[in-house]
């Protein structure tokens, strides 16, 4: 039994994903990506995971997509528009996509997942917090290191050497 909200979300997510990749302008593409990510957040809500959904919206839609948008703005105008891909590559890619969908889809449809149902209540988000602080606590430390390294690394990369040397000069 497919719910209409689910259907709408699916169409929105997948459609916007295709749009995000295929539309000529990168700016519209970014907006398409935002829609996809929002669609996923919608799914999370459907799945009774509001905490994750909010996180998704704030991190992805709020920060990543905006970051991407800024980057897009940064580059030259002509680069914003797609170059036309080699059609052979394109068809090969579409073929791979379809085979993958069909292949993995078949496995999933053929598996026992289809009969998987649940009646129990959804997990309380407090449990998530508890997990973070108990079982996953080392992972959280590592997570912090990941973010630190990403920040350090991204800064080191993105910093303009000529500018820094100017700064050093004075």
């Amino acid at each position, binding site marked *: 039994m497919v719910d209409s909200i689910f259907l709408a979300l699916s169409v929105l997510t997948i459609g916007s994903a295709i749009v995000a990749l295929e539309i000529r302008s990168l700016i519209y593409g970014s907006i398409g990506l935002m829609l996809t990510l929002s669609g996923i957040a919608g799914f999370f809500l459907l799945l009774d995971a509001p905490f994750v959904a909010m996180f998704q919206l704030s991190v992805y839609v709020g920060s990543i997509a905006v970051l991407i948008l800024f980057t897009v703005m940064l580059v030259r105008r002509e680069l914003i528009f797609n170059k036309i891909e080699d059609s052979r590559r394109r068809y090969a890619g579409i073929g791979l996509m379809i085979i993958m969908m069909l292949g993995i889809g078949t496995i999933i449809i053929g598996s026992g997942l289809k009969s998987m149902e649940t009646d129990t209540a959804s*997990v309380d988000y407090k449990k998530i917090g508890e997990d973070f602080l108990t079982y996953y606590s080392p992972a959280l430390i590592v997570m912090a290191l990941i973010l630190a390294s990403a920040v350090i690394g991204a800064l080191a990369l993105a910093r303009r050497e000529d500018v820094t040397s100017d700064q050093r000069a004075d």
Partner: protein
Amino acid sequence: MTNALIDFVLVSVALLAIGIYGLSVKRNAIRMLFAVEMIVNSANLNLVAFARFIPNSQGQTLALFSIAIAAAEVAVGLALVIVAYRMYNNIDIADFRSLKG
């Protein structure tokens, strides 16, 4: 729960496949980042869906981790793209092919 688990999973598979399509066809570096995000999101969708049906919290936790990591990854990726752009004035990955053979 009105929706079956398998529906979510199928959506996620579709998203995964689209992501792989995007990575293997698109030439624009930023668009390739889009595709990466799609793949990560498809996995997240899976995780949360499973977490709902099992049910336990681990899936959601992992999804949270994954989102955070994706953010970090994107930051680094964009930094690389910017460096490339500075150097070549170009962000077309297919043109970056001096290393081959």
